[in-house]
């Protein structure tokens, strides 16, 4: 492989989660401003992670730590696969494995809120994985599963599919109305309850990797021959998606787990189905 391209890929895998961390900081800042407060510095997520890393570890069970690490590594592997242009479907499944590791970590600590959080996280997976799966398959259908081969036309052909990603992002970003698994006022922070210090930091970074992958999927929808336009467009698209979730977060209460699953499945599947149907009618083939 071209050494430069390789180096670039490695760099992307390292930088992408950092960008997501920054986006999380912006998210908190924008959220605060929408609530008419000042909000934290934009670099806050990094301070948080740094702080957590410096705390004394505390655990209920060894497996918690193992699964936290596994979640991080799987999400990182997913991102690496994504960046290296390999199969999107495989990437998606690897990333899903990372999510499952979080669930197992939550279960391996026998503690009431952690356990309920694990159950709810599973339901969240039930809610968003099918939608993500459909998005991936739609992309594969229109273009290719190989990330490296995906080119333009997606935004034009699959606008509703892109829209279906927004509720998925709402779940992944733990925002209302679908922050059911981590519901602060109900189960404190769900699967994360028993995580503290460095292990929580690991999970947080894992989440950045996961989000980097999902936002990466959002960016796939924009493509242009010109590298500069392409990158600018991709970033704009990702930011637009983030902004949409923030607005939704600030204008809604948390719904229940039943609401979450049914809404996600009906809306997500519906959007993808309508999109494919229209495409089929317009183009005669999918």
């Amino acid at each position, binding site marked *: 492989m071209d050494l430069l391209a390789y180096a670039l890929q490695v760099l992307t895998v390292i930088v992408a989660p950092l960008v997501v961390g920054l986006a999380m900081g912006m998210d908190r800042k924008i959220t*605060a401003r929408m609530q008419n*407060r000042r*909000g934290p510095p934009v670099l806050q997520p*990094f301070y948080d992670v740094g702080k957590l890393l*410096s705390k*004394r570890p505390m655990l209920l069970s060894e497996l918690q730590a193992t699964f936290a690490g596994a979640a991080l590594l799987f999400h990182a592997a997913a991102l690496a696969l994504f960046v290296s242009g390999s199969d999107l479907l495989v990437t998606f499944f690897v990333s899903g494995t990372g999510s499952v590791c979080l669930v197992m970590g939550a279960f391996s600590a026998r503690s009431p809120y952690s356990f309920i959080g694990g159950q709810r996280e599973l339901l969240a997976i039930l809610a968003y994985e099918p939608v993500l799966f459909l998005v991936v398959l739609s992309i594969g259908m229109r273009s290719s599963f190989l990330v490296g081969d995906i080119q333009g036309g997606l935004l034009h052909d699959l606008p509703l599919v892109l829209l279906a990603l927004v509720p998925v992002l709402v779940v992944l970003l733990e925002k209302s109305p679908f922050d059911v698994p981590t519901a602060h006022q109900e189960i404190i922070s769900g699967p994360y309850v028993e995580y503290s210090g460095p292990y929580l930091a690991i999970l947080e970074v894992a989440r950045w990797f996961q989000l980097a992958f999902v936002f990466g999927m959002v960016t796939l929808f924009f493509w242009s021959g010109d590298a500069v336009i392409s990158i600018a467009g991709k970033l704009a698209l990702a930011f637009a998606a983030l902004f949409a979730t923030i607005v939704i977060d600030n204008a809604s209460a948390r719904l229940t787990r039943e609401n979450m699953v049914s809404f996600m499945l009906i809306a997500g599947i519906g959007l993808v189905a309508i999109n494919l149907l229209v495409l089929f009618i317009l183009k005669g083939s999918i």
Partner: protein
Amino acid sequence: MMTLESKMRIRSPWIMHFDTGSCNGCDMEVWALLTPRYDIERFGAMNRANPKQADILLITGPVTKRCEDRLRNLYEQTPEPKLVIACGDCASTGAPFHNCYNVNGGVDKVIPVDVYVPGCACRPEVLIDALVLGLSKWREKAAGADKEAEG
């Protein structure tokens, strides 16, 4: 020169609030801290409501006999390094409830306290002062540790 670690720590104090039998006055002021007017998220603070993820315990109330064990539990579940801030007169000395038979009279009767906040109720501004004081205590500690490490 402070280590990066302690810098981060000062910028990200996550709090947990526990009411050990207060009159609610100070609790409301703790909540006021989180809301637009005082917004301690400015300082990177976040209400985690979970001892395992907290750095700073904001304790209100004179610690009733029944809350004693719970307070101790929560304290033990908070990983080091941690700060305990006794919010309000009753958490500091139990004063308003000094005639009550069922109180311990202050958080420091049960767990070590780092910062005592006067006031009944303690105004949000005072709580912010307390936070700053607590963090500077951390900073000093960190600086001391650095010096030791150098020396």
